[in-house]
Each structure stands twice: as structure tokens, then as C-alpha cells.
């Protein structure tokens, strides 16, 4: 493997982190752009307001200037003609001028530069009103003098002053307008700058994101290809190993079969001739007895002892040993035969099957005063005979190794764990020393007190069958506390999964 799994996880994590970072950067840029647009809009509106304001100030100034010119014209009319109509026009124009000056005052109240100017205008207007009054009340001579001294006419001077101030105010407003225009231009330039930067940022983020994605996808492709290759290799390897294992298994089974058969042959002789020996001993024994009766002095104690005790004892030992050997050979033979049996998977109601097993053991259960509880067990598709054999062996064992003096309680439970089905046989019996947990599954090995009949075959048989069905069996146990044997099998066994 080129990369170990944690390393790949780490790479993936850093990729995710990087991508998230880039995406947040992109979003931040977008938010920045939106804020800039909103701000610019505000600025624009404000600027427009100000431009509007300046324009109305200008208009007012113009109004005012026109009014003043009108008054002056009227005054000159009065001075030249003395007609009272001009006086009316003058009063009217004065009123209009006054109103427009008030408005101007209102508009320029916020401007500290314009304010003294408006005040000055108010003052000038008031002064001018005085000259007006003089014009109206003056005699013809006086009027002629005023007309003649145009240069020194106070009204004319005032009007000139007014014109100058109005001109200044107008100039001021124009300057302001120009300033605002410039500011707006700057704002716009700034906005375009911000927009350009965020746009650039978004493009950059998009490009980098794309690059990262591409690189990651490429890495993903590479690792996927590698994974596929490894997987293929693994499958080939598994196939090869399976074939090897099957061959080895067949070899072992053949070996077990041949050995057990070949061992039987000499055993027939040993047992046969032991029987013949026993028969011969009986004949000799009868003769010795007869001799002892008829000629007691011919039979010494040693002969009697040899015939009556030594020979039967030796024969007895030979018999029990050969019988045991016979049982062991038969056990091996049975196991090897089990290994050669065809496995036929079928759907099985495990609860009913277990009930049948328990029913068949009922006399033992009653005899031991034990109690067996069967939960609802999950159904399974497997070889019926094998499952029955395994569960039967486990339950029988549980019954066999109960703790004396404690009412036996055996419980059979089951559950589905992904594609496997697990059955458990739990007892409160004498338990198994942890040292022996592996050993109990070995052929001819037993644990604890050897006070029960048996050859140590049951669990070996269970394990062989479990392996054959693609399953496992293990034990959890504590001395004096009880044991739990767990049988884990594929929920659906396919006929092809089983080795021949």
C-alpha cells in the first residue's frame, strides 16, 4: 500500500479544511462587495441630496438677485418720474425679496461661511429700504440730485454691495458643488476599486478551489485505481489461498481417514488376541484350580497369584486401553467423515430447532433439575444437520458441566450482527479456567475435573463444523461463574462458499 489509511484520512481532512477556507474567503469577498455597493448607494443618495440643496440655494440667490434688481429699477423709476405706481412695485418687490432672503437664510443655516453673508444681505436690504424710503419722500430737486450723483447714490452703492455678496454666495455654492462632485467621483473610484478587488478575489478563490478540486479528484482517481488493483490482487490471493486451504483440508481428511482405518487393523488383533489370551487364561485358571484341589503341594502361591490376579489385571488394562483407543479412532473417523459430508444450506427456524434439541434432552434436564430457557432466535440459512449438531453439543455440554449444588439455568439467545447471525448458549455452571479457553476446542482435550464421561470431542466437533460453515465459535467463561459459548455463522450460507 502506498499510503496508509490514517495518512489518507489526514490528507482528506486537510483538503476539506482548505476547501472550506477558500469557500469562506469567497463568501467574505461577496459580502464585502455587497457592503461596498450599499455604502456607495448611501453616499450617492447623500450626494444627490447635497447637489439638490446647492441647486435650491443657487435658485434662491438668483431669485433674490432678480428681486433686488427689480427694486432698484423701481427706485430709479421713482427717482426719475416721481410716479407713485413705482412705489407700489417697489413694496411688492421688496416683499418678494424678503421672502426669498428668508428662504435663503433657512437653506444656508448649516453653512458657517454663508451664514454671515445672509446676515449681511439682511442688513444691506434693511439699509436699502431706508434709501427707498428717502426716494419716496424726497422732493423733485433732491431726486434730481440723487439721479445726478449716480456714483455716490447710496442705493446704488448698496445694490452693488448686495450684488457682490450674492455673487460670493453663488461662488461659494458652486465651489461646494464642485467639491461634492469631486467627492462623488472619489467615492465612485473607491467603489470601483473595492469591486475590482473583491472580483479579483472571487476569481482567485474560484481558480484555487478549482485547482484544489482537480488535484484532489486526480488523487482520488489514483487511489481508487490502486484500491481496485489491490482488491483484484486480494481476490486472486484469497482464491489461491482458498484452493490451497481446501487442498490441505482434503489432504488432512484423507490422512485422518487412512490413519484411522490403518490403526483399526492392528487394534483388531490386539483386542482379538487379548480375548484369546483371556480364554486361554480361563482354561489355565480352571486347570490350576483343579490342580490346587487335587494336588495342593504342586501349586505354589506365585502361580496362583499370576493366574488369578496378574493376568486378569494385565488383560483388563489392555482391554480398557484398546477400547479407549478404539473410541478415539472412531472419533477421528467421525470428524473426517463429517468433513466429507455434503453441506446443504436451507432456511431454518432456529427457535424450533433448539426446542427440538432441548426436548430430546428432556430426561437429562429433569435428572439434573436444570432449566433451559430459549429466546426467540433469528432464522438462518445454513446446513441443518451441522447447526443441530453444534447447538446440541453446546447445550449438552452446558448440562453436563453444571455446578453441583446450584440449580442449573441455561439460556439460548441469538441476534443478528450485520451479515452474521450469532447464537449464544449461556450457563451458570462450573465454568472454564481462562487458560483452557482455547484448549477446550482441541480434539481430545478437556478442562477441569475429569468427572464426566467423554473423550473431548464435542467442542472440537463444534469448531470443525463452525469452520466448515464459514463460522466461528468461542467462549467467555469464569471459573465457578458459568460459561457463554458464542456461535457466529453467516446468516445466509451459499452452497458455493463451502469447501469440498
Amino acid at each position: 500500500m502506498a499510503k496508509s489509511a490514517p495518512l489518507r484520512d489526514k490528507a482528506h481532512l486537510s483538503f476539506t479544511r482548505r476547501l472550506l477556507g477558500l469557500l469562506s474567503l469567497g463568501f467574505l469577498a461577496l459580502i464585502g462587495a455587497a457592503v461596498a455597493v450599499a455604502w456607495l448607494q448611501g453616499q450617492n443618495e447623500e450626494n444627490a441630496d447635497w447637489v439638490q440643496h446647492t441647486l435650491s440655494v443657487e435658485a434662491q440667490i438668483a431669485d433674490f438677485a432678480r428681486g433686488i434688481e427689480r427694486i432698484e429699477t423701481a427706485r430709479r423709476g421713482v427717482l426719475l418720474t416721481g410716479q407713485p405706481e413705482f412705489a407700489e412695485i417697489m413694496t411688492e418687490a421688496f416683499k418678494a425679496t424678503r421672502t426669498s432672503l428668508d428662504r435663503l437664510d433657512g437653506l444656508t443655516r448649516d453653512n458657517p461661511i454663508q451664514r454671515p453673508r445672509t446676515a449681511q444681505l439682511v442688513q444691506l436690504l434693511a439699509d436699502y429700504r431706508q434709501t427707498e424710503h428717502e426716494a419716496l419722500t424726497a422732493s423733485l430737486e433732491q431726486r434730481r440730485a440723487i439721479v445726478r450723483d449716480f456714483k455716490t447714490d447710496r442705493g446704488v452703492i448698496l445694490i452693488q454691495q448686495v450684488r457682490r455678496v450674492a455673487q460670493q454666495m453663488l461662488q461659494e455654492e458652486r465651489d461646494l458643488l464642485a467639491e461634492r462632485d469631486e467627492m462623488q467621483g472619489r467615492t465612485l473610484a473607491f467603489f470601483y476599486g473595492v469591486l475590482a478587488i473583491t472580483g479579483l478575489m472571487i476569481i482567485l478563490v474560484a481558480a484555487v478551489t478549482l485547482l484544489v478540486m482537480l488535484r484532489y479528484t486526480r488523487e482520488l482517481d489514483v487511489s481508487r485505481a490502486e484500491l481496485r488493483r489491490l482488491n483484484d490482487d486480494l481476490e486472486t490471493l484469497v482464491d489461491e489461498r482458498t484452493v490451497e486451504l481446501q487442498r490441505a483440508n482434503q489432504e488432512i481428511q484423507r490422512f485422518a481417514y487412512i490413519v484411522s482405518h490403518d490403526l483399526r487393523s492392528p487394534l483388531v488383533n490386539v483386542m482379538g488376541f487379548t480375548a484369546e489370551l483371556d480364554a486361554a487364561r480361563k482354561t489355565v485358571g480352571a486347570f490350576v484350580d483343579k490342580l490346587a484341589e487335587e494336588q495342593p503341594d504342586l501349586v505354589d502361591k506365585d502361580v496362583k497369584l499370576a493366574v488369578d490376579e496378574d493376568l486378569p489385571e494385565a488383560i483388563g488394562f489392555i482391554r480398557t486401553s484398546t477400547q479407549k483407543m478404539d473410541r478415539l479412532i472412531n472419533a477421528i473417523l467421525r470428524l473426517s467423515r463429517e468433513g466429507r459430508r455434503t453441506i446443504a444450506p436451507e432456511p431454518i427456524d432456529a427457535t424450533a430447532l433448539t426446542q427440538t434439541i432441548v426436548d430430546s434432552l428432556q430426561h437429562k434436564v429433569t435428572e439434573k433439575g436444570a432449566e433451559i430457557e430459549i429466546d426467540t432466535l433469528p432464522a438462518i440459512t445454513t446446513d441443518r444437520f451441522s447447526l443441530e449438531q453444534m447447538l446440541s453439543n453446546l447445550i449438552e455440554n452446558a448440562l453436563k458441566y453444571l455446578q453441583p449444588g446450584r440449580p442449573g439455568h441455561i439460556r439460548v439467545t441469538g441476534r443478528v450482527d450485520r451479515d452474521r447471525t450469532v447464537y449464544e448458549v449461556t450457563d451458570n455452571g462450573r465454568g472454564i479456567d481462562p487458560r483452557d479457553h482455547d484448549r477446550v476446542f482441541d480434539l481430545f482435550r478437556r478442562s477441569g475435573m475429569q468427572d464426566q464421561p467423554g473423550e473431548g470431542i464435542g467442542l472440537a466437533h463444534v469448531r470443525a463444523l463452525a469452520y466448515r460453515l464459514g463460522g466461528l465459535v468461542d467462549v467467555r467463561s469464569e471459573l465457578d461463574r458459568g460459561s457463554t459459548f458464542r456461535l457466529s455463522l453467516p446468516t445466509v450460507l451459499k452452497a458455493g462458499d463451502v469447501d469440498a
Partner: protein
Amino acid sequence: MTEHQPVNIVMIEDDEGHARLIEKNIRRAGISNVIRHFTDGTTALEYLFNAPDGPAKNGPALILLDLNLPDMSGTDILAKIKAEGSPLKRTPVVVLTTTDDKVEIQRCYDLGCNVYITKPVNYENFADAIRQLGLFLSVIQVPDPEIAG
């Protein structure tokens, strides 16, 4: 064809002990026919087919055959005896062996074996089986071989 020609028992058994036990128990059943014992296939076949006093040339016989022989398989001997055109085709063959493999038993019957007996390991059963075989042998009618030429 002589009516009262005695039937020879030919025992092909590589284990001397088994042979002895078989003979003992046959005798115990009251069978006193001559028992010829061979421990390998080659000499047994030689005797069966070619010996002047062998069953092919001379008189009826009954064959006790063990399948596990050192030099050839018992089934090969069985096949030769029961082969088409063999002078011993009708000679009864009792296969007496330790093999209890179903396939092997079927094969023997297919080849023409007349009785197949698995030797029980338990001696009482073994002795019993042989004695019953003896009783069976005492009543069995054995045909004469088709003496060639």
C-alpha cells in the same frame, strides 16, 4: 463335475493376526474345509488362476478377500476374478475388510462381490461375525469353475 469335491477356502489377508483370528473362528463354527492363506495379491492371483491345484484348474472354491493389501488393491483382485471370461466368474467372493466407506462398498458390489463384511473392532462382534460367516459357508452351494480347455 464331481458332486462331493470339497470346497477350498482361499483367504487373501495381509494381516497374519487377522488371518489367524478368522481361521480360529471359522473352525469354531465347525467348518473344517481347507483354508489356503495368502498375504499378498500377486501370489494369491497366481494360485487362483494358474496353480494346478488352484480353483481355476481344480475344483470349487470360496474366496475371503481383504481390500487393504500391500501390493495391490483388493478391488483389483475382485475385478480380475469377476471379469467377463474369467473361469472364476461364479466363484463366491466374501469381502472381509476394515473399510466401511460407502463408496467402496458400492464399488465392490458393482464389481460382483457376493458378500461384504466390515470387520468389527470389538472382538466379540468380530468373532460373532466370523462364526456366522462360518455357518453361512456350511450351507452355501458353490458352483464348479468353468475349467478352461
